[in-house]
Structure formats: structure tokens, C-alpha cells
């Protein structure tokens, strides 16, 4: 039971972190129709900038400044790159962001090399907040939850209580209403892209000390982010939240419990073949739940798409 509680908390942290990425991605997608393949790369940029800044000023300034720089870079890329490609259509836009992801990864390796960087949590948070049955829960993770919740509430406030937020919200469901933003649509697009990427950058800063800062960190998270928003329903912010939490818990619990295929198969009445290593189904018999953990989101996505192509909470297709 104690372990269960710890896992609930851990899964919650993972889910919220995922949501910080997904919310920005969803905002951008809803407003601009662009699925930003490079979104996780901005997350990586955030972590690297924060590391570099923290060398000089310490963690906290990095936490503030790095997302701003990432957002600025995002806005500039929208202005001078994406807008240019926009006229060719959606597929080239997607390809552009894909190329951007490659380029950002290579650029980061150019400046920071290929090894993992020693980016650690600030000393002020480097202690165990509490422990459940010997399992320490780091104060830093409490901080992560606080930041993610803060972002979420701010977003909620902006979307439901401000004029621009309501327009954005309308645009989530009815893309045509984007035009109601007036004639300054390009500026709004640039800002949305900037804010979305800044949020990814912020996620990178706070995730960096926990998940590691290395050139593969974008790739490692990238596809999961897309899978999440597809499961949640493209363009649905609530869907993104639900799917993020589902995936966070799914992965945590899948890893936490050692259910083996052998147990399941024997329970439903099969007998284990004796010479398991020569058996054609050996892989099935030796399968364990933690092994399956990382592919569960993809399986879930395929299932959701087959049964409900618009995603869990999506209301429009494509």
C-alpha cells in the first residue's frame, strides 16, 4: 500500500511534466494547425540553457531566464521559418518542424558535446521532503508538482477568464473563429508559438535535473508527447491533461508491478513448455509487465485510434 502511494505520486509527477509539454503543443496545434514535431527539442533547449545559465548564476535565475530565451527563439523560428513554409501547406510544415528537431539536436551537440551534463537540483531543494516506508520523496519533486500545477492553473485562468483566452478556447473547437482575433493573426500566432515553446522550455528546466540533460533527451520524450495528444484528442486541452496523467500512471505502475506473462498464462490454464528456450513462444512466456511498460502508450494509441479516431476527448478529426 505504501509503495502504491509512492507510485501514485511519482506517476502524477510524470504525468504533469508530460502535460506541460502537451499543453503547449496542443495550443500551437489548435491555433495554427501545426503539429510541432520539434516541441520536445525546445524542451531540450530549455534544459541546456538553464544548465549554462546556472553555471553562472545558480539554478533559480536559470529557471526564469531559460524559458524566456526558448520562447524568444520559438517566436523567431515561427516568424522567419514556419511562416515561410506555411504557404506550402500542412505536410511541409510538419516536415519543417521535423527538420528543425534534427537541426536543434545537432546544434546542441555542436555547442555542448555529446555527454550527459551534470545539471543537478538546487541545493535548497536537495533533501527528502518525506519518506513512505523508507522510500524518500525528494523535495524537488514537490517543487515540480507545484510548478506544473501553477502553470496549469495560470493557463486555466487565462483561457477561461480573459478575452484572448476565450477566443483561443473558441479556436480550439472551431478553427474558423481564429479570424475573430482581428487582423493581427500573424502576431497572435507568433506569440502562441512563443508561449507554447517557452512552456516546453520551462518543462525542460525543471525536468533536466531529474531526467538528465543529454542530446537524446528530446528524442526520448518526443514521440511520447505526440502519442499523448493523439490519445487525448488533437486540439483538446482537457484531453491532453487526461491522457498525460493516464500515461504517467500507466508507465509508473507498469514498471512497479512485476506481473509476468507466465503468471497470467498459468492462471488462465496454460502450462509452461518445459524446454522454454527452444520454444517458438518463449518470448511470450518470459514477458513481464515492466518490459511492456514503454510500449504501452503506443499500444494504447493504436487501440484508441482504431476505436475512436478523434481521440478520447477530441471533437474534430485531423
Amino acid at each position, binding site marked *: 500500500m505504501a*509503495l502504491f502511494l509512492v507510485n501514485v505520486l*511519482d506517476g502524477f509527477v510524470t504525468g504533469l511534466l508530460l502535460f506541460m509539454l502537451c499543453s503547449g503543443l496542443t495550443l500551437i496545434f489548435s491555433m495554427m494547425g501545426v503539429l510541432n514535431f520539434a516541441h520536445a527539442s525546445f524542451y531540450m533547449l530549455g534544459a541546456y540553457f538553464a544548465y549554462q545559465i546556472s553555471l553562472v548564476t545558480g539554478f533559480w535565475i536559470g529557471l526564469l531566464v531559460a524559458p524566456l530565451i526558448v520562447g524568444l527563439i520559438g517566436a523567431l523560428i515561427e516568424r522567419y521559418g514556419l511562416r515561410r513554409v506555411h504557404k506550402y501547406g500542412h505536410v511541409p510544415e510538419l516536415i519543417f518542424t521535423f527538420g528543425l528537431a534534427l537541426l536543434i539536436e545537432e546544434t546542441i551537440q555542436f555547442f555542448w558535446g555529446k555527454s*550527459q551534463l551534470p545539471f543537478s537540483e538546487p541545493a535548497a531543494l536537495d533533501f527528502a521532503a518525506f519518506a513512505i516506508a*523508507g522510500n524518500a520523496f525528494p523535495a524537488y519533486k514537490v517543487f515540480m508538482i507545484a510548478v506544473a500545477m501553477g502553470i496549469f492553473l495560470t493557463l486555466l485562468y487565462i483561457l477561461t477568464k480573459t478575452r484572448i483566452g476565450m477566443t483561443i478556447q473558441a479556436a480550439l473547437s472551431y478553427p474558423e473563429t481564429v479570424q475573430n482575433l482581428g487582423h493581427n493573426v500573424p502576431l497572435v500566432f507568433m506569440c502562441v508559438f512563443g508561449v507554447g515553446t517557452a512552456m516546453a522550455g520551462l518543462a525542460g528546466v525543471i525536468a533536466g535535473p531529474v531526467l*538528465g540533460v543529454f542530446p537524446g533527451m528530446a528524442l526520448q520524450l518526443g514521440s511520447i508527447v505526440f502519442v499523448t495528444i493523439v490519445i487525448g484528442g488533437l486540439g483538446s486541452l482537457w484531453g491532453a491533461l487526461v491522457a498525460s496523467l493516464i500515461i504517467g500512471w500507466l508507465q509508473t*505502475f507498469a514498471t512497479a508491478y512485476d506481473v509476468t506473462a507466465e503468471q497470467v498464462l498459468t492462471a488462465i490454464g496454460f502450462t509452461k513448455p518445459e524446454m522454454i528456450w527452444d520454444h517458438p513462444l518463449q518470448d511470450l512466456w518470459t514477458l513481464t509487465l515492466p518490459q511492456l*511498460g514503454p510500449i504501452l502508450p503506443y499500444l494504447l494509441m493504436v487501440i484508441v485510434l482504431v476505436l475512436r479516431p478523434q481521440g478520447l476527448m477530441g471533437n474534430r478529426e485531423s
Partner: protein
Amino acid sequence: MNKFNLMMATALAAGLVAGAAAAQEKVRIAFIDPLSGPFATTGTQGLAIYRHSVKELVNEPGALLDGNAEFEMVPFDNKISAKESLIQLQVAMDQGIRVIAQGASSGVANALTEAVAKHNRRNPDDPVIFLNHSAVDPALTNDKCQFWHFRFDANADIKMDALTDDIAANPDIKKVYVIGQDYSFGKAVAAAAQRFLQEKRPDIEIVGNELHPIGKVKDFTPYARKIVGSGADAVITGNWGGDMVGLGKAVMGAGFDKPIYTYYGATSGITAAFGEEGDGIVKLVGAGQVNPAPTLEAQEFIEAFYVSFPDLDFGQPQMANVAPMLAAAINEVGNATDIKAIAYALEGMEYDSIVTGKTLMRESDHQTIQTVTVQGQTPEAAFDYDNSGRGMVAETVVELASNDSATTCEMKRP
């Protein structure tokens, strides 16, 4: 503009010609390892150790054919891909190189050893020799062994033998958790841990034995929770790269303060990432030792390495043996072209290494037998890793480790 362009073109052409002409009295070794991409650090570091040992132990002392020949390292970037490795092998052979060195990734080593065996079977008069400096999947010197492959690192079983010696000597350890990456090497480590612990300390309970997907786990926290929850007194893992950092940080972050035995828990950014938290906790099993330098020559040799390569680590001491042992074999044959004779000369060779002590290339399976040490992370290391101020110091030293270990290898000799 015109003139500059022309100048560059001629310079380029001249460079190519010079590159082709300078290759005469050199014995070239193709170094096929990742030099770009996520594992570039491993390859770059290995290449540096090779270059350093070639310079200090062979070329400068004139140790190859009485100083009439020199070794030259020719790097080939395989991007840690099996396909690229085979292409680079082909390129290297086309350039006339007949000595291939590789080590990062047992998967690539498997591909290369098969490709080399196939090539030598199809071209019996023009064989190629494969010097494996750090791929430690036991299969390479057991079921998949072949005459042209030589392994200079201690394989996973040998390392586990030494590692479990250390555990067996520690009465505080009653429960062990084994975790590794889900592929041949991870499985080999798990199997060896089980076997040796059963043999040496049947009272130790293995409270967890699991494999996780390689390179796919973003957050090791749930694993760490299980490890802490199991009440383990020690962790054994064969993880490397990002999986090592992730696992180590998560386990220590979850409040685990007992030994974590690793195969690759140091250098390449890992020591820096663990930092202070890893002191006294992270253990590493490996061939030879760096701290304290086992011999005076080793002390000078490693010091010189850090002068030449201040940003890199002297991470895998056994790699410094490859060049001098090859040189000794060539000297015994008397020329560098009869690859078959050189391979026969390498078989059974005994060598006094400055870093791995008494070293023996076992004839039966082409597995090197050498000193294997269990080292612990500490801030009091003379030679540090990742410029982090901390390094690995030998705690348990096993000379000629696993000299009498069995092999399933049935060597077919040409």
C-alpha cells in the same frame, strides 16, 4: 575570390595525394567505433587511449620490428550502427588495412566478428584480424568464438566473478537486487550474478532480478522504488550510458545508500552526473586499475595521457594493451603482413602489462586473462573522471581473474 578558390582546390588535391603516399612503413589499425552521435564520447575516449598507447608504448620506444615500422590508428565512425560498421570494415579492408579494432557495443562486435569470419572463409589468402577491446558479451568467446577474434577486456562472466568476490567478502550484504538492460549482455550479467552468488554465498537472497528495455526508460523512479522497497543491501547492474545515469540517480534519489555494483558506472559524464551522492556508493568492476596506478610506468603513462587529453578520461585501461601485444605478435612473426601467423602468435601470448598486471591471451577461446578490480567512487582519486574531482579507486584486486574458467568455445583453426 577566384584565386582563393583555386588555392583551396589545389590544397585539397595535394592533401589527398599526401594522405595516400604517406602510408608506407606504417602498420595501420582500423579503429571502428562511434565517433559521432550519442555514444561518441565512448569512441573518442577509446581512440585517445589507443593513440596514446601506440605513441608511448610502441612508436616512440621503437618497439615494432626494431623501430622499422610504426602503428597508425585510422579512425572509422560506425555511428554505433551494425550496418555502418560493416561498410566501414569494407572501406578499411579496401584501404589495405587488415587489423580491425572495435569495442563499443556487443551488438556491433557480433556483426563484425561474423563479417570477419565470413570474409576470411571466402578469402582464405587475405584474412583480417579482429581485436575486440571492450565488447564483453561472453558469447563472443564461447558459442560464437572464432579464430580471428581476440578479446582484450575481461568478459561479463569474469567481471562478475571478481564482483561477487567483493560481495561475498561483505557480511552486511544479505539481499541483492539485479537489474539490467533487456538484451544479450544484460541477460548475461543477470545469469552470471545468479550463478556466482549461489556458488559463493548461498545465503544471499536475490530479491529482484529484472530487465528493463534498453535506452527506452525515461524515468527510473519506479524501478528505484521497487529496489528500495525490496530492502536490498546491494544492487548489481550492467547498465551503461544514459541507462546507467538514470538508474543511478533515481536509486540514490530514492534514498538508497548502499553499494551499487556496476560495469560501466564511471567516466563519459557518469561520474560527474553522480557527483558527491555517488561517493562510497558506486562501485565499478573492470580490467586493470587507474587509482592507485599499479606501477610507476603506469603512473607516468596515465599522467602523460591527461596532459595530452585533458578533457578525456583514461577510462578503460585494458585498451592500452592491444597495441603492445599486437606489436609483440608482429615482432615474433617478423613481418606485419602475414595475418594468419600474427593471429597464431597472439594465441597464448603472455604479457606483462603496466596497467593490468600479468596478462594472458588464452588459447582456447581468445579471451584475455588479466587483473580485474572492483573500484569505488571517491573524491580522493589521483586521476579523476569527467574533471569532476572524483574518480575510481581499486578496492578489491583479483590477479589473473578467472584463469581456470570454462569455455564452450570449440576453436576451428585454419
